C-alpha cells in the first residue's frame, strides 16, 4: 500500500474519531445541578481535542504527501509470520491467561511459539522431533523460571 493512500484512509478514521469526541464533549453532562463554573465543564477539553484532531485529519487528507518527498510504499514484512505472532500472543493473553493456571498457560504459549518459529520445511522428521522436544523443554523451564522469579523472588501475584 502506498503511504499517501494509507494517510488518506487514516485521515478519514481520525476525522471521524475527532468529530465523535467533539460531539461527545458537547453533549456531555454539564453538571448544572452541582452549580459548577460553566468554564469548568468536563466536556470542554474533549471538545477542543476532538476539534484539533479533526482539523489535523483534514490537513493530513489534503496534504499532497505527508512524507514531504516521493510517495513511498509501506514496508511490508512476512504476513504469515505476523499472523502467527498475532494468533499466538492473542490466544495466550486473551484466552489462556485467566483460564488455565499461569504456569501451564505460559508453558503452552512458549512451547508453541518456539516450535512454530523454529519450523523449517527442509528439516528431516528426526530433526523436527528433536525441535519439538527442545521447544517443550524450553517452554517448561522458561515458564517455571518466570513463575518462580515473580512469585517467590519478587512476591508478585500472578493471574
Amino acid at each position: 500500500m502506498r503511504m499517501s493512500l494509507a494517510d488518506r484512509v487514516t485521515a478519514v478514521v481520525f476525522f471521524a474519531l475527532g468529530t465523535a469526541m467533539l460531539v461527545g464533549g458537547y453533549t456531555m453532562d454539564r453538571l448544572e445541578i452541582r452549580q459548577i463554573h460553566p468554564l469548568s465543564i468536563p466536556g470542554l477539553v474533549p471538545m477542543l481535542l476532538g476539534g484539533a484532531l479533526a482539523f489535523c485529519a483534514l490537513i493530513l487528507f489534503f496534504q499532497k504527501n505527508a512524507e514531504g518527498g516521493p510517495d513511498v510504499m509501506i514496508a511490508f514484512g512476512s504476513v504469515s509470520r505476523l499472523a502467527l505472532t498475532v494468533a499466538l500472543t492473542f490466544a495466550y493473553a486473551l484466552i489462556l491467561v485467566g483460564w488455565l493456571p499461569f504456569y501451564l498457560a505460559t508453558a503452552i504459549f512458549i512451547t508453541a511459539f518456539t516450535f512454530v518459529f523454529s519450523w523449517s520445511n527442509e528439516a528431516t522428521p528426526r530433526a523436527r522431533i528433536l525441535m519439538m522436544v527442545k521447544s517443550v523443554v524450553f517452554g517448561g523451564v522458561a515458564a517455571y523460571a518466570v513463575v518462580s522469579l515473580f512469585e517467590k523472588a519478587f512476591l508478585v501475584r500472578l493471574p
Partner: protein
Amino acid sequence: MNQLANLGTALWELSTPIMLFHVAWSMLLGIIVGALPGLTATMGVALMVTLTYSMDTTAAILVLICMYVGAIYGGSRSAILLNIPGTPASAATSLDGYPLARAGLAGQAMGLATAGSVLGTLVGIVIMVTVSPALAELALRFGSYEMFWLALFGVLISGQLTVDTAPIKGYIAGILGLMIAMVGSEGLHAFVRFSPIQPMNGGIGLIPAMVGVFGLAEIMTAMWQRQGVLAAVRDKSDRIIPSFRQVWKYRVTVLRSGVIGTLIGVIPGVGEDIGAWASYAAAKRASKEPEKYGHGSTEGLIAAETGNSAVVPGSLIPALTLAVPGSASAAVLIAALFIHGIRPGPMIMIEQPQFISTMAAILILATIAMGIYGLTMTKLFVQVLRVPYAYLMPLVFTLCVVGTYALSQRLFDVYVMVAFGIIGFMLRQMKYPMAPLVLGIILGTMLDTNLRRSLMLGNGDLWPFITRPISAVFVLIILVAIALNFAVVRRGLARVRTKLVWSRNA
C-alpha cells in the same frame, strides 16, 4: 559546594554490598536488553518496574536507572556488530561503528563507544546537578496557566521533533495520547468521561498502554521483519580499552556532544535518538574530516554515543523538577517514582532536597558499571546477539503480560496492553511516532485540569494566558515551532540570514 557534599554523601550511602549487587545485575540486564534488536530501553524499563514493586524505593530507582543507562549503551553493541541498532538511540552509532567493525576494528569501535557513553553520561550528570535546583525553584512560580502551556508545549514539541516524516503525524499522535487521557474520572469534579465499562472508570493505565505500544508492537514488528544476521566480523583491533590520548583528541567533540545531548534530553519527550543525531550532525559540521563520517569515523562514533548517553541525565531534569518526562523511558520512570511514593515536580527540592543528589549518585554508579562491563565483556554481548527470536520473543511477551497484570492485579489491563499493541503496531507502520502518544497520556490530566482551573480563576479572561511572563515565553516558543513547519517562513528566515551574511561581508 553544598551539592558536591550531598553527592558525596549519597554516593557513600549507596555503596553498600546489596546496592552494588543491584547495580551489577540490573546494568548487565540493561546492556543485554539494549543489545538485542527488538527490545528498547523504554520497554526494558517498563518491564523492570514490575520487578521493583517489592523493593525499597532507593533500590527500585537504582535498578530502573541502571536498566535505562545500560539499555541505551547496549544498543551500540548490535549497531556496531550487526548494523542493526539495538535501540533507536543507536541508529547514528551504526553509521560509523559498522564500517569500523567491517574493517576489523570492532573491538576498538566498542571501546570508543564505551568511552563516549561514559563521558556523555558524566557531562549530563554535571549539568543535571547544576541545573535541576534552579529549574525546580523556577517551577515553583508556575501557576495553572503555566502548567497548561507546559503540557501543551511538551506534547507539541515532542510531536514535532520525534517524527521522521511530516510533523502533522507527530501532532496527531500527541492529540491521540491526550484524548486517551480524557477517559475515566476527571480531576476537577470526579465526573467519569467516555467510560462504557466499569474497569475504565479509573482511566487507561500508563503502564499497560506503554507496554503495549513499546512491547507488543515491538514484538510484532520484529517478527514481521526478519532477524539480521551477525556480520562475519573478525576483530583485528590491538586493544579494546582506548588510550587516554585517543580520547583526549576528541575532548571538544565529547564536551559539545554531551551538552547537546543533555539539552535535547531536557526537551519533553524527545529522547535519545534525536540526541545522538543532533550531536552527530554538529560534530560533522565542526569536523576537519567530515568526508570520513559514515565510512568509519571514530569521531562520528564517539559523538553519537556521547550524545545519546547524555540524554539520560538530561531527560531526568524536567522529569524530576516538573514531572514532565524528557524521554519515553523517563516517562516510565516518573510512573515508577509515583508507585514508590516519590512525587516528582516543583516541590521535590523542598520535600526531598537530597533526591537530586541521590539520582546523580545512582547515575555515577551506573556509569562506572557500564564502563567496566563495556570494556571487559565484549565477547559475551556478541554471544547474546545470537539468541534467535523464536526463543526470545515469547519470553519477552510473557514479561509484558506479567508486567501489566502485576500492578493492579486486573486482567483488564492485559487486554488494554493487547489493544495498545495493535494500535501501536499499525501507527508505527504508517510512521507515527509513539513518544508523543505516551507523553499525551501522561500530560493529558495536567493539561485538562489546569486549562479549566485557569479559566475559572480568570472568570473566562484569556489575557493571563499570554501576558504572564512565563506563559508568554511558552506561547512564543510554541508559535515559532509551529511557524517553522511552513515553507514560506523557512524561506523567509533563509533570506534574512543571507542578507545578514552579505551585509557583514560588505
